[in-house]
């Protein structure tokens, strides 16, 4: 029987519905998550199923959204929060970084702060400088948080269910351009553990670690390169904190070459961290300098051709591979 095809946004809403049905401590709050079903459609149908007592539309008050969710979590609830875009998580950084991430440590290990903060991330749809960024590195820098960024509907559903069940705060970033992309998602229930990378394509010539929008672009690039006889291994870390560095290092030991591809800015991106970790742990296995494919340090422009020009594309990946193979 052919597998059921489900869009990324449907995978998200399925995960939330299943977890809300499973655990009555789980509830949903954020701007426009209720009757509308989310500005990007990630919570469609949930209000109709669970009603206004467990699906809370909020005013435009990011500090209150995360602060209230934290308070509720400290009193034993398990909120799923939507901040519409990762760009706007800057508005509630105190609540995320100083409060949520540190609450357990600064309370003598007492509360389990089981709190998921979802947000759309990355650009590619012409939304401009304040609606197109990708801040996974900001949150990966903070002990106390977990950071998840799935690139397929299957991963999104399985990882979101694990995030909701995790006794720690989880930042869950959803690449905006992928919401409408469909992929196989089984009918039966499954979860994917946080902190496990997946080898999305096996190869022997070069390892590419990619996530978010860059994962499908990398898979396409790998196909193009295969036709030219270059055998690419593609790894999606899926969780950026904790990072499954072992899977990456094992791959580099096999291929001897590493490229990290992400849409976030190059400077101080997670790619820099992965490059540092790999040279610490597999320096003798490297046959070429580690390369990063990333957005140059720029403010994302709205104009379609300008945006396409600054964001890394499939061709950028192909060219980078050829420069070291």
């Amino acid at each position, binding site marked *: 029987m052919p597998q059921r095809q489900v869009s990324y946004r449907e995978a998200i809403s399925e995960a939330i519905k299943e977890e809300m049905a499973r655990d009555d401590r789980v509830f949903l709050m954020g701007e426009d998550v209720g009757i509308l079903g989310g500005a990007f459609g990630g919570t469609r149908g949930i209000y109709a199923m669970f009603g206004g007592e467990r699906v809370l539309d909020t005013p435009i008050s990011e500090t209150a959204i995360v602060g209230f969710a934290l308070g509720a979590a*400290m009193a034993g609830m398990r909120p799923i929060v939507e901040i519409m875009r990762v760009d706007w998580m800057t508005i509630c950084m105190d609540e995320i970084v100083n409060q949520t991430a540190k609450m357990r440590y600064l309370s003598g290990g007492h509360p389990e702060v089981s709190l998921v903060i979802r947000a759309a991330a990355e650009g590619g749809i012409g939304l401009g400088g304040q609606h197109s960024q990708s801040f996974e590195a900001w949150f990966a820098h903070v*002990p106390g948080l977990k950071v998840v960024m799935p690139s397929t509907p299957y991963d999104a559903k399985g990882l979101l269910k694990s995030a909701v069940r995790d006794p720690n705060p989880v930042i869950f970033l959803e690449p905006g351009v992928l919401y409408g992309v469909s992929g196989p998602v089984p009918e039966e229930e499954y979860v994917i553990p946080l902190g496990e990378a997946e080898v999305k394509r096996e190869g022997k010539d070069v390892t590419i670690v990619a996530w978010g929008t860059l994962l499908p672009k990398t898979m396409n690039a790998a196909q193009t390169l295969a036709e030219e006889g270059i055998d690419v291994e593609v790894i999606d870390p899926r969780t950026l904190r904790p990072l499954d560095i072992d899977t990456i290092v094992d791959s580099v030991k096999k291929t001897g070459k590493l490229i990290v591809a992400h849409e976030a800015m190059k400077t101080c991106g997670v790619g820099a961290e992965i490059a540092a970790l790999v040279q610490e742990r597999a320096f003798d296995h490297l046959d070429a300098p580690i390369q990063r494919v990333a957005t140059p340090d720029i403010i994302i422009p709205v104009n379609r051709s300008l945006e396409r020009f600054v964001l890394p594309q499939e061709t950028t990946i192909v060219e980078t591979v050829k420069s070291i193979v």
Partner: protein
Amino acid sequence: MPLTKEVLLDMYRRMLTIRHFEEGITELSKQGLIPGTGHVSIGEEAVAVGSCSALEEKDYLISTHRAHGHLLARGADIKVILAEVLGKATGCTGGKGGSMHLSDFSQHILGTNGIVGAGINIAGGVGLAIKMRQTGQVCLGFFGDGATNRGTFHEGLNLAGVWKVPTVFVCTNNQYGLSMPQCKACANIDISARASAYNMPGYRVDGTDVIAVYEAVKSAVTRARRGDGPSLVEAVCYRLRGHSMRMDQMPGGSDYRPKGEVEDWAAKKDPLKIFRQKLKELGYLTDKAAEQIDAECQKLFDDAADFALNSPEPKPESAFQWIYAQEGVK
């Protein structure tokens, strides 16, 4: 709760315990025994004790960086709190949080906070959880006048008002945000007036009168428990010490107030003096009994100091404890 002689004397004891605790740690700080700093609430004891006396055992508390008094008023173990202020292994976070991060989850004290205004939303969220679970509890959230000019005050009180959560917001208006006088920081010095913007009752009470504070907070708690939503109580008092123990020890660290202002408030509006006088007038307290209570409260601190000073330092590896809760699907 009728304010019987026993109840009032217990409130007096708690206020005096806070005073001795904070005078005591000020001395320990001068001796270099306290890591970092700490913010004492001398002059604000009536707000702590009056507010906490209006709560039931099952109710929650969220507080600020200036919270020793709130913890002690609520009944947290003075030894554990002092050990935490001293950064010892026996403190409530094993010496990792210090004076600004005090908690006692067994008493529903969910923690204090190093960021001004951050606790307001958290207190609202605790109220949301109470409302969703229909447990009949109330959450009391303390903050200062300084916090009322942060966006979190507006966002938090508005959302609490929209959702009618059972949270009582208690603003200790001690008239200074560090060196900034409240009259220069707030366009309208009447903070309680803002309650109408959030569709909740606002109370403005004399924060040096423990009974006035109790009565206002009690009304607010009763309303919250009835399911009618939040209230804002502004208790006006005066911070008789500087912003922090460390700043008070800095040359010029407390020179920002007009000459004589502190002395004037200390002479006329010291909440302990006022309450002691009231108890004497009621015939509940004699000079001799007052001396005895004073000695007993001092002994509580001395015993706590003995415990805390002789407590072990935390083990180095404990620094890595509690960053994450145990993995695993529940």
